Structure formats: C-alpha cells, structure tokens
C-alpha cells in the first residue's frame, strides 16, 4: 500500500513539475506568443495585407531606427537605468549629420553623427559616474540642452539633406548595417565580459564591485554605446526623412522604453536582461503601429488600444517573483 502511495505521490510530483515547466515555458515565450497573436490578429483583420512583401518591407523601414536604438537601450537598461536623452540625441545627431552633408561632405555625415552620439553618451556617463548625478536628472538635463541646440541649429521648420543622398537609402545598405550591428550587439551582450558585467550592475552594484567590476567604466560604456547607436540612428533618420526637423526623434525615448518592455525585459535590468527583447519589442511596436492603420484604427482610439495592449502584454510576459522587490 505504501508503495502505491509512493508511486501516486511520484506521479503527482511529475505532473506538478510538468505544469510548472509549462508555466515557466509560457512565461518565457509569452512575448513571442504576443507577437504571434498580433501577427495573426492583424493578418486576419487586414486580410493578409500585413504580411505582404511590400508591407514587410515597410515594417523593416519603419522599425529600423528604433531597432538600432533599442538594441543599445538594452545595454543601459540592463544596469537598471534609463537614458531619457535618447530621442534628443537622435534628433541632434540627425541635425549635425544633415548640416555636415549639406555644407561639408555627405560622406562625413555618418562619422559626425556617430561622434556626436558618442560625445553625448560620454558626457551622460561621466555625469552619472564621476559627478554622482542621478541618471534621471543627468539625462533630463541633457535632453533640455540638446533640444535647445537642435532648435537653434534649424532655422526654419526643417533642413534638407543633399538630393544626391536620396539614393543612399536602400534596403541593401540598411540590411548590411543591420546584420553587422545585430551581430556585434548580440555577441557583445551575450558572449563578452561587457554584457555580463553590465547585467551584474543591474543585479547589485555592490556585489559587482566586490567581484572586481569597474563600475564607472562599465556605466560610461553603456551610455557611450547608447549614444553611438543614437548617432547611427540619427544618420539613418536623416536618410529616411530627407533631412532634420525640430521634431526628429521626439518620441524615440518612450518608444524605446515601450519596445524593451514589450520585448519582455525587466526595466530594472539584471540577469534577466536579454537582447532579444529589443528585437521582439521593436517588431511588436512597429507591427502594432502599422497594423492599426492598415486595419483602420488610426483615430482617437489608437493610443488607447496601444495602452491596453501594452498593459496586457507586460502583465502576462513580465516575470514576477514574489521575493523580488518591485519598484
């Protein structure tokens, strides 16, 4: 009898473990499932228009700059910080790239954009590490400064890039850059010391310090990566929009945060940070924006639907451990 009980108990344990495993798996895959749901939903509502070759190309174009910045945003977020100056950095880099292309040389526009982004990221990183400013304050002030600088550099409503640069905006160039960029980011985040140390900062700064991580250097590096990505995105934004405007990059910061959260990454960073969150999240955000207009939901309800979906996806996908303190 006791043997039967033991067997029953073992069977129950196995069943419980399977259930827990399925729950864990669902939790890990929920973002992917969310993406599938969106694709299916909009695919059906738009009668396949969402997945036409032309529309997929549009999704690639529309999500491109966001993907570049979001991938780098993961580096900053994995430390438990946010970079509120991202959008302004993209805008300012775009302006500098446009001015360089117009008045100096189109070929120099990309290194200028990258250098500008790098400088901004460096200043942010140094302010936070060496001057011990809260990241929110440092980045917010940088946002103010860059916004004013952008407005000062643009005399009219916008400035145009040279017409000869229109042909630079090709899917081939973007594809090549995207592949190289993705490869570098994935390798750096997942397979190098950089990614591991950044994640350790998100878990516990003190523990990271005790483990020999150079906190200041890693934080500065995270912001520099973010700045460089914003610079590259600024350059591609210039190609896409034909120039720079005072509104360029305006919504980028919030789009990045929304994308990363949609992608299932915790905003407090740490060990659960994953680079795939940037890719999935960007896809979700772009498909959502694209799908809603294709389906005819472009009016007042657009933002409401986005907000509800945002809540629904993170409610299901966000990992919740009762022992973890949620702030």
């Amino acid at each position: 009898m006791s043997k039967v009980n033991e067997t029953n108990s073992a069977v129950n344990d196995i069943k419980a473990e399977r259930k827990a495993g399925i729950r864990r798996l669902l939790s890990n895959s929920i973002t992917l499932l969310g993406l599938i749901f969106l694709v299916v939903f909009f695919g059906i509502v738009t009668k396949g228009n969402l997945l036409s070759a032309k529309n997929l190309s549009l999704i690639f174009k529309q999500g491109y700059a966001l993907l570049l910045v979001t991938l780098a945003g993961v580096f900053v977020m994995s430390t438990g910080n946010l970079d509120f100056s991202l959008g302004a950095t993209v805008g300012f880099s775009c302006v500098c790239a446009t001015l360089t292309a117009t008045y100096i040389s189109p070929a120099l526009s990309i290194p200028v954009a990258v250098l500008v982004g790098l400088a901004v990221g460096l200043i942010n990183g140094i302010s936070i590490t060496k001057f011990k400013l809260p990241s929110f304050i440092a980045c917010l002030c940088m946002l103010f400064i860059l916004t004013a600088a952008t407005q000062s550099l643009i005399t009219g409503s916008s400035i145009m890039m040279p017409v000869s640069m229109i042909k630079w905006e090709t899917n081939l160039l973007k594809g090549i850059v995207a592949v190289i960029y993705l490869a570098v980011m994935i390798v750096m985040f997942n397979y190098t010391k950089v990614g591991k140390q950044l994640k350790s900062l998100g878990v516990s700064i003190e523990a990271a310090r005790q483990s020999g991580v150079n906190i200041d250097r890693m934080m500065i590096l995270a912001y520099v990566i973010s700045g460089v990505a914003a610079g590259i995105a600024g350059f591609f934004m210039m190609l896409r929009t034909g120039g720079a405007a005072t509104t360029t990059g305006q919504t980028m910061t919030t789009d990045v945060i929304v994308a990363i959260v949609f992608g299932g990454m915790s905003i407090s960073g740490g060990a659960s940070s994953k680079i795939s969150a940037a890719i999935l999240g960007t896809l979700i955000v772009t498909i959502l924006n694209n799908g809603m207009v294709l389906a005819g939901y472009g009016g007042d309800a657009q933002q409401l639907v986005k907000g509800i979906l945002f809540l629904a996806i993170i409610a299901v996908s966000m990992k919740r451990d009762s022992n973890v303190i949620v702030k």
Partner: protein
Amino acid sequence: MINVKSKSISIKAILLTVLLPIVVYAVLSCFRPDIYLQKSTFIMLLTQALSNVIIGWSMVFGMSVGLFDFSVGARILLAAFFGVHMSQRFGIAGFVIGCIVASIIIAILTGLIYASLKIPSIITGFSALLIFESLAVMYQNRITVIIGDDISIFGTSPGIYIVSVITFIAVYALFNNTKFGYQIKAIGGNEAVAKSMGINSVKIKLLTYVVGGLILAFATMVKVGYAGTITARTNMSSMSMCFTPMMGVMIGLYISSCNPVIGVFIGSFTITIVSSGLVALGIESRLQNVVVGIFLILFIGWKTNFYRIQELIRKRRHNNIPLQE
C-alpha cells in the same frame, strides 16, 4: 543649555532650508531690483509655484518608496475634464467632488495595476499615461469645456493659499505623524528590512497611490482655477507636466536640513524663481529649460559631491598644496 543648543540647531536648519531660494532671489534682485524687490512679484511667484508644489506633494509619498509615475499629467487632465463637466451641472460643489472622485478612482486603478500585476511603477506609469491621455481626449471631445469664473477661486488668492495650507497640513501630518508615514520611510530606507519587520509594502505602496490621488485632486483644482483653461494632450506629451514638479521634489529630497514635505515646497519655489528670473533677464524662451536643467545639475551635483569637495579642500589645507594654475 540643551534648549539653547537645540534652538540654535533648529534656527540653523531653518536658515539652511530657506537659503537656496533666498540666494537665488537675492541674485535676481541684484540684476532686476525693479522687479524682485516688489512684494507683488514675490506673491506672484509664490502663487505660480503652488500648483507644482501640490503636485510635488502628491508625488512625494510615491517617490519616497521608490515609485516613479509619469502618468501624473494625464491623471490631472482626466480628473479635470470630469470636474469641469460636473461643474456645468452642479456648480462649484460638482467641480470639487468631481475632481476628488475622479482623481481617487484613477489613482486606485493605477495603484491596482501596479500592485496586482507586480510590474515596475515606471511601466505602470507609462501604461496609465497612454490610457488616461486617450480617455482625456475622448472625454474632452464629448463635452463643452467651459470653466466658470467660480472655479478660478482655487487658482487665485485667497483660495489657492487656503487649499495649499490645508494640503500642506494634511501631507505633513500624514508623512510625519502617522503610522503610514513611518511605514513609508521604513520602506524607502530599506524595503527588504521593512518587509521582514512585517510591513506590507505592497499595501503601503497602493495606499501611496490613493493618498497621492487625493492630493492630486487638489492640485487639479488649483491648476484649473489658476490657468482658467484645460486642454487635452496626446502622444505622451502630458509627461512634460510632471517634469517641473519632479524637479522640485528632487531638490526637496536633497535638502537635508528639513522635512521632505517642506523640501518639496522649497524646491518647487526655487525652480519657479529661476524660470521666472530667466524671463526677467531677457533670456530666450528655448534656452530657459537649459538654464533650469543646468541649475538642477549644479545644485544636485553640489549636494551629492559636497563631502568629496570638503575632503578635497581639507586635504589641500592639510598638505598645503598650492592650487594648480
């Protein structure tokens, strides 16, 4: 002896607390004595600061326990439209009750999202921002937004001062003299320790949303009464409504010589003086945010690096190291 010492300590604390706005005001008075040495200017600045002060007070509970909520602006808009709508049917009582009821319900909803879904407050804030902003637009488009003259009492003297004083007393008492206030400070100090002491941090955080919502109702009344108008916003632009109060709260939390509640007032008042002063000095509109930002960096930088600077000075004196040219 002890009394004299504690008296001098408290006078020192008071002086340190008000030093920041006094210094800023004094500097501006040197440049524009014709403006800043007038009583009416001081009163105007005080009135201007109060709506941001009350918003700051609504945020101080949450920020003390580590909650960051960017949906404050959207919540104000939605509560304001409801209040204005009610005022058209029930007069000023309708406005007051409408703002309070709407603000508390919205706050409870936001708090429940945070507490039940266990998602970070900043994410809760973003989702609330998206949802409440859209609802505010939809609501605005369905009513006629006319703000009666009676509502302006909340934004002008003496109404604005009465509301502010009542709110201050309530916030100060809640923050400093109630179990709730102590629990907030315990959680803000070290949440893990607070939890192990038996404090239900989730319940307290939810309560900070509710209490914050009530205070925000007063901020809504003051804001609508002060401006005389209210307009919906979209695309997350209402987030900028909470930047100035947040800056005030941050300055307030860094002023160690006084209670955070008073600190918020001092911080917001100082920011108001700075931004007004920029206009008086003829600085272009687009540069004003930059100057405010730099001021914030300098103040917080000074505060966070104060001991390092002191240490540096002490070392130089001790070693008699001449300053490098």
